[in-house]
């Protein structure tokens, strides 16, 4: 058994030609941790994963695994496993052969891999490999598929086989590049749960790249939000969601998107939003600011804002109301349970629910804000 090991990326810089892709990324993955790299497409998260895997060389910075610098080590020697977005199964090999490939390449000599002669030379090793493949197939419940070829499998089955191929050789960490993005919605949710269970069972670090914030929020121990080749925030899902460091993070994480409204920090420290008092105080310099409120922190009722309903988004469990406030602004709010959906164009009054609004400076940086005492009273 390989030891559970941590991975460290420090000062990773990468550009393709003259296009910079990563601007100095520092990241620590603790042993056994499930870390998600999340960000919009083109933010460099996949490149970062491939640098970690050794499939691409960074222009600067260092990669280390379990404290050992592996920047110059090739992917084949790093003992990491990777699951690709396209699964990258060998289409001419059966499922069993696909899963056995990493073991064959590592445990058998070149002579032992020869077709007929190799069979005789390595009976025992081959039996060991076969047993290992069957054991992993049992965990993933793909035993009946072992003799099939990838072309005969469904997307979800291929996904499992790709996982199986990664699992057979007990790597120090698993790297996954949007592994669920080719599955349909229902299967994705199901595989999400399976991945979480698998992670607990294997006890290895998972580094998981996704653009789907729902996957990031549900699966991760910690998530790293990336954008434009920079690491914006690294923290637990609760931290990233509830305490984002910038407006970019706040807008990217959370669905529907967080509402942003123009606000102001007055000279006495009180914060207003569209001229209305918010019951917040901020120690930051007075001036204009952006107030951001999660849809679930708004509700219907008198007391805050009002506008006309643009459209009601029914997600089954929740109904989100998109309300126009004049010509320029719109807020989305979660309708309270049991509310009859109003018709578009109806007058809607918006009230504050629980939760504190977040305050951001004009450049998107988070500003400190605390509830004002008199507002609570």
């Amino acid at each position: 058994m390989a030891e559970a090991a941590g991975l460290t990326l420090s000062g990773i810089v990468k550009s393709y030609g003259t296009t910079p892709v990563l601007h100095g990324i520092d990241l620590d993955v603790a042993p056994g941790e499930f870390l998600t790299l999340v960000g919009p497409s083109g933010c460099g998260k996949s490149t970062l994963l491939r640098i970690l895997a050794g499939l691409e060389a960074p222009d600067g910075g260092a990669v280390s695994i379990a404290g050992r610098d592996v920047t110059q080590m090739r992917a084949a020697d790093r003992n990491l496993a990777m699951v690709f977005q396209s699964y990258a199964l060998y289409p001419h090999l059966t499922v069993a052969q696909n899963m056995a490939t990493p073991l064959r390449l590592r445990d058998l000599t070149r002579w032992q891999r020869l077709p007929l002669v190799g069979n005789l030379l390595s009976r025992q090793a081959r039996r060991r490999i076969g047993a290992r493949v069957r054991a992993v197939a049992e965990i993933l419940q793909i035993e009946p598929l072992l003799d099939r070829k990838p072309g005969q499998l469904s997307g979800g089955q291929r996904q499992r086989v790709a996982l199986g191929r990664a699992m057979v050789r007990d790597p120090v960490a698993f790297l996954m590049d949007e592994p669920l993005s080719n599955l349909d919605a229902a299967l994705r949710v199901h595989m999400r749960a399976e991945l979480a269970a698998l992670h607990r069972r294997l006890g290895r670090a998972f580094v998981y790249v996704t653009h789907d914030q729902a996957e990031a929020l549900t699966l991760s121990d910690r998530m790293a939000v990336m954008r434009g080749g920079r690491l914006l925030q690294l923290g637990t899902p609760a931290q990233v969601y509830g305490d984002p460091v910038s407006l970019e993070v706040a807008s990217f994480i959370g669905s529907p998107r967080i509402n942003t409204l123009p606000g102001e920090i007055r000279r006495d420290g009180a914060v207003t939003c569209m001229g209305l008092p918010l019951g917040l105080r901020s120690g930051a310099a007075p001036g204009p600011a952006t107030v951001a409120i999660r849809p679930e922190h708004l509700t219907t009722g008198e007391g805050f804002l009002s506008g006309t309903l643009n459209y009601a988004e029914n997600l089954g469990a929740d109904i989100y109301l998109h309300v126009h406030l004049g010509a320029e602004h719109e807020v989305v709010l979660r309708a309270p349970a049991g509310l009859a959906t109003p018709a578009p164009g109806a007058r809607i009054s918006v009230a504050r629910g629980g939760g504190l609004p977040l305050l951001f400076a004009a450049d998107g940086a988070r500003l400190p804000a605390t509830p004002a005492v008199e507002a609570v009273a």
Partner: protein
Amino acid sequence: MTGRAHLWFVGPALVLMVLILLMPIAVAAGLSLTDYGLGNRSTDWVGLANYEQIFTRSAYEKMFGATFRYVAITVPLSVGLGLGAALLVHSVARFGDIYKTIYFLPVMASLVAMAIVWEFTLHPTIGLVNRTLEQGCGTWLETWGWYANGCARSFPLWFGDRQYALGSVAFIGVWQAFGFNMVLYLAGLTGIPRELYQAAEVDGAKSAWDRFRLVTWPMLGPTTVFVVTISFIRSFQVFDTVEAIYETGGGPSRSVYVMMYAIYEKAVRQNLIGIGAAITIIFLAFVMVLTLLQRRLVERRTHYV
């Protein structure tokens, strides 16, 4: 419903196919059973006599021998070199297009013209090849027995010596065909997903050979089926090189008397259309059997993505 519209849809294609593709073959098959010749006053039904001749007379034995030897040299070499060149061209970052063009030049050139160029190049006394070889006489190269022999007497008459003639003609065939195979393989190579190579790398395929065995070769399977089939058919059809180099007779003691040339000699030169047709039918049968055989053997192990 008893409409006949469907006949109008299927009809034209069917008629054309029968008229253009199947009829000529049927006519050839019919003629092969006669002693027909253009301008003959009478034509007799001779049954299988033409075929009997082909399978018993030594001239035809030589024909089969030459054809099979030519195919046996040309196909593996042109496929192998085509694959090798494709892998090399595919791996270079720059100048790939230039290499592609250069290797493809022989394919575009007229084979008759090129055969004449080669005839000069390989000319026993004034040819570039033998004159270059002569420069090496008196050096360490003479330690090689074949070379010493060449210096002592003369270097081979590449096209005139029975020992070398077929090899020389096959060389031109390979030279001409491998660029075509390379282009087909290049198309196959660009179709291999890069992620497969990365998966192979992560799985521990360290050497180029491992990657080739695990990814490149299997993924080129469909291309290989096509390339090998095409190469077989094209080398069975070799004619212009032989015709351009040997004006009569199919080379020294008929060592380059390939089937296509035999058909031409019999049917066109000697006006023995019956025999010519019989060779054509046998030729067709060979190509057909080979193609089917090769499909069965290779396709079973080939994966189509």
